[in-house]
């Protein structure tokens, strides 16, 4: 089966200018930037859940936001169904907004506390001018996210709902316009363990039912294994390894991916213990290390080349890896 690309991102960069104090800006000649996303390329296929994993500060959330044009990219291109939307203005982009939605991390923050569920779900339809069958569509979407019977939830405020129910309202809101692509930014990290599984299984079901594609942003590799078809591991604004999730989890090649996987505790007291071969924490994205950005913490550091030359993504054993270990 040939799977089509729905979203294609090419050499995407997002630099945030660093605000300096007045006096310092007089003295300093150069404007400093936080290089949140620094040249990432990937594609999300139709009916696929594509995972972006990494520590905080790796640029995964910014990538998601840039794709939805919630922030403008500094450079690079974004294609939706083959069309370049990078420079489209807000008005021209509006039809695309209908196809591209987002679920935020914190359902306690992302729902307006003054709106009842019905209004929350109605708002996207009103904005997009889809005025037909509003009632019916809201009912259907509530049933889809298993908030049943819908009439019990329609007139409730977010504070009357539990965390899991709120997140399902947020999922319903992202679905009500029948989108083709949803950015899910850590959608279960704020939820309790027993409820987390419920929302995860719901997302998987919706993928099958509606054929929606997801960009699933997470720091939890164990979770990405359950959800994502393909996975990209990010470090300081760059993709270090990308390929089929199961392949990466079973045999990680990049030292950073290996380190991440070794650090995940396993809910089994008799299995292998966690290992931490990597020292320190993620460096600042203002002045990222030269060459390979991971070289300052890398347990497999091989010398000069890691410090001088930036490794490029290469096809190694059925996935893309950016590491000098494999370049010769």
């Amino acid at each position: 089966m040939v799977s089509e690309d729905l979203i294609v991102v090419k050499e995407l960069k997002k630099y945030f200018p660093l605000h300096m104090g007045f006096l310092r800006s007089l003295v300093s000649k150069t404007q400093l930037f936080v290089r949140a996303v620094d040249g990432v390329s990937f594609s999300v296929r139709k009916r696929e859940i594509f995972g972006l994993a990494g520590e905080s500060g790796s640029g995964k959330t910014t990538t998601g936001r840039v794709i939805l044009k919630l922030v403008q990219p500094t450079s690079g291109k974004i294609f939706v169904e083959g069309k370049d939307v990078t420079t489209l203005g807000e008005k021209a982009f509006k039809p695309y907004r209908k196809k591209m939605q987002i679920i935020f991390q914190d359902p306690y923050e992302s729902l307006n506390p003054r709106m009842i569920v019905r209004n929350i779900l109605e708002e996207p339809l009103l904005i997009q001018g889809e005025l037909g069958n509003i009632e019916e569509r809201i009912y259907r979407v509530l049933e889809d996210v298993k908030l049943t019977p819908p009439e019990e939830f329609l007139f409730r405020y977010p504070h009357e709902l539990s965390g899991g129910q709120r997140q399902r309202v947020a999922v319903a809101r992202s679905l009500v316009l029948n989108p083709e692509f949803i950015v899910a930014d850590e959608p279960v990290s704020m939820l309790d363990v027993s409820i987390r599984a419920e929302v995860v299984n719901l997302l998987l079901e919706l993928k099958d039912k509606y054929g929606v594609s997801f960009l699933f942003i997470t720091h939890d590799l164990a979770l990405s294994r359950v959800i994502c078809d393909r996975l990209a591991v990010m470090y300081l604004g760059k993709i270090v390894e990308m390929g089929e999730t199961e392949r990466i989890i079973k045999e990680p090649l990049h030292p950073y991916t290996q380190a991440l996987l070794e650090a995940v505790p396993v809910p089994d007291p008799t299995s292998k213990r966690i290992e931490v071969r990597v020292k320190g924490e993620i460096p600042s994205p203002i002045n990222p290390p030269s060459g390979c950005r991971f070289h300052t913490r890398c347990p497999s550091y091989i010398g000069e080349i890691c410090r001088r030359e930036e490794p490029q993504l290469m096809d190694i054993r059925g996935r893309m890896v950016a590491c000098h270990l494999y370049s010769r």
Partner: protein
Amino acid sequence: MSLLDIDNLKTYYMVKRGYVKAVDGVSFSVNKGEATGLAGESGCGKTTVAISILKILPPGGKIVSGHIFFNGNDLVALDEDTFREEVRWKQISVVFQGAMNALNPLFRVGDQIVEAIMLHEKDVSRKEAYERAAKLFELVGIPPSRIDNYPHEFSGGMKQRAMIAMALACNPSLLIADEPSTALDVIVAAQILKLLKDLKSKLGLSMMLITHDLSIIAEICESTVIMYGGKVMEYGDTIEVFKNPLHPYTVGLISAFPNIRGERTEMVSIPGQPPDLLEPPVGCVFHPRCKYAMEICRKKEPVYFEFKKGHFVSCHLISER
């Protein structure tokens, strides 16, 4: 040998509408030199157990009944002055959730540790305390040269290490760690867990580890307590609890966790929500979410009993057997 024995502890919070039974008849022990893990979802009462032991309950919270035996002495009966002078920090100390934000931003990290030492041990001079703080820094893996830094100069992981150093300042025999790695990144969290494990074996420290993440307990703790709705559902040796879980809730929690090693498994959810502790369900607190719920579960609260040596459970399914 057990260091801490909690016996049928009940801690309630008084609110306008009545009593929130946050901890309602909890019993378990922490053995010397071992770690006991307290697992459960938010609102199950695990943090309340910790602050009951430390006697730092907020206004309205009260230990209603039960005993907390520490080295054989009942802490519940102890008056506040003696408790503060002899037990808190010297015997039992704590690292709280989000401890990285617990450091005062206006004071140097080292000075904050010196303060803790000097407050609890009156005969120690400032110079001695300072030297001890430097040793503690080394113990938790921060270069002692950083002792004069301010908290904002520390990364998240270093702040957490500093908090652990502070908790160890007066050589306690029991360390309570409440979600010690929750707000940290994967690799940093693993570093902190490793540190706790090393400290446990190096100092012979006993620990009570509170977490919602079963995999952290599997990693560190010798015994496991599974809490739900203010009660202990199951308690026993960690390997026993993970390999032969008795309570349906324990089984549910374990299968709700994705595993990174071995075969890819599906996540199984537990339908429903945690109970309202103002009006907990009649009978077994877990029955509204339990797929094996029987008639008796809705009527009678199951007794907490020893099913096998050292393996306790509270479930009608098991007691009926």
